[in-house]
């Protein structure tokens, strides 16, 4: 731990000072501003549309954060050989990787807290403007959704670490991470579709069904983290589900990071 901390700290500092963060925050703020206009156009459920937009804005900016800042923190080390300087210290490759990951988790948590704060302020103002249309609104659920989004990003970041442990360029890591994100997000729906293809009138070969079912266990099931709908309508989410999601994040990240460490241990930096 004593060795992980310095790496985590410089990773966090390097990330938080990155100019891209300003751009991403600006984008999030613009989306939150647009929320005032859009939610004003709704006749009944202002709260639902406002929460939808706020949560989606945060989740999208968070994804940009992982893709454009998080990946770079790791991949640029390899691209630009910054890793030489780190590896020259009494730090093993696994310690390096885990320290980096802790730094990225720190970065995601801090940025998401900040963005969520802005989102909460925007919701508070909209709520103030249309108090009668916020009857089923629940701060607890909105907060829980922010938390789940953060967990989802931490998981995606772990995957990006796995990819950069065996790819040679940051661009490849970027592409692979986006693909896994898309697969992870649509996996639940795709599985539902191929298991009941008659709903849209298509036929699916049994091989495809098997492949999708296999992918279901390999790729992270990111749609499990999406409780925006429940948050938007103030529907309950049981405590056991929250515990389950936290456990899922931890177990999956540990598996992915262990694999990344195993690959990274054998990696050379010519």
């Amino acid at each position: 731990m004593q060795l992980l901390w310095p790496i985590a700290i410089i990773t966090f500092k390097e990330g938080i000072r990155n100019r891209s963060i300003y751009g991403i925050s600006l984008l999030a703020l613009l989306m939150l501003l647009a929320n005032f206009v859009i939610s004003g156009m709704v006749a009944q459920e202002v709260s639902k549309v406002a929460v939808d937009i706020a949560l989606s804005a945060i989740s999208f900016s968070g994804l940009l954060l992982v893709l454009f800042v998080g990946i770079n923190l790791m991949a640029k080390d390899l691209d630009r050989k910054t890793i030489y300087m780190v590896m020259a210290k009494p730090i093993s490759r696994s310690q390096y990787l885990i320290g980096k990951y802790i730094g990225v988790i720190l970065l995601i948590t801090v940025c998401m807290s900040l963005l969520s704060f802005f989102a909460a302020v925007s919701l508070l103002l909209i709520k103030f403007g249309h108090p009668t249309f916020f009857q089923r609104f629940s701060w607890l659920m909105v907060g829980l959704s922010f938390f789940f989004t953060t967990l989802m990003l931490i998981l995606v970041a772990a995957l990006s670490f796995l990819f950069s442990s065996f790819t040679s360029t940051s661009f490849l890591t970027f592409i692979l991470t986006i693909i896994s994100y898309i697969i992870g997000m649509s996996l639940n729906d795709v599985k539902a579709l191929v298991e009941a293809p008659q709903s849209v009138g298509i036929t699916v070969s049994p091989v495809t069904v098997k492949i999708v079912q296999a992918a279901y266990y390999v790729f992270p099931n990111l749609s499990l983290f999406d409780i925006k709908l429940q948050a938007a309508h103030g529907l309950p989410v049981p405590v056991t589900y929250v515990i389950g999601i936290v456990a899922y994040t931890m177990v999956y990240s540990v598996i992915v990071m262990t694999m990344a460490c195993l690959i990274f241990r054998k990696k050379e930096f010519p």
Partner: protein
Amino acid sequence: MISFASVSKEFKEGVAAKRVRALSNLTLEIERGQIFGFLGPNGAGKSTTIKILLNLIFPDSGRATIRGMDVCDKNVRRFVGYLPENPYFYDYLTAEELLWFGGKSSGMAKSAIVERSNLLLDKVQLLESRKRPLRTYSKGMVQRAGLALALIHNPDVVILDEPMSGLDPIGRKMVGDIILELKKEGKTVFFSSHILSDVERLCDRVGIIVGGQLRLTGCVAEILKGGDTLEDAFMREVHIAGLKEVR
């Protein structure tokens, strides 16, 4: 202090996995307190040798040790300082933070880090710009910051890959003085260069490597005694190796 025992390394190149021999059967011994200059043309295997010492790449066969410990052991690097060739550090960190990281990860106490980093930054003349992010530094300044980072934990063994490249004459003199100072403190310095005058001025011993093979090792004084300059010796070795390759 530093020893290579018949170390070989091959690289796979490209999709066709064409094997390129970067280092063959390198055996070398460097004693405590020596300044060893590692000479060779571009692509001769100097950087490969150094990367093996830092465990950045793994030898195919043979063994490299520092102070008798295998370089695979990360604890070796507690007493090794390293300056990479054309170093590149983090864009948004300051020199001060870079040194903090170097000291902290070597297990230094906070007060010791502050004291030592101020000393070193003064020595490499970066004290005034220590709070500026590294991306605003010139190439020479980055090189000097890297040197300070290599020395932050007061290592016994200092490995410098092309420490003079990219420096102006003043910077080169500064680095030369630091190397001589390290010698005075009894440290072992292993540095690669192709600037022969620097090597001649600073080193106790030199090794000349061409095409992955160590052609010559010896004391600088001995080589110069025969009336040769270091350049003569160097060109001769390159020439012989080159002729062999042609045949």
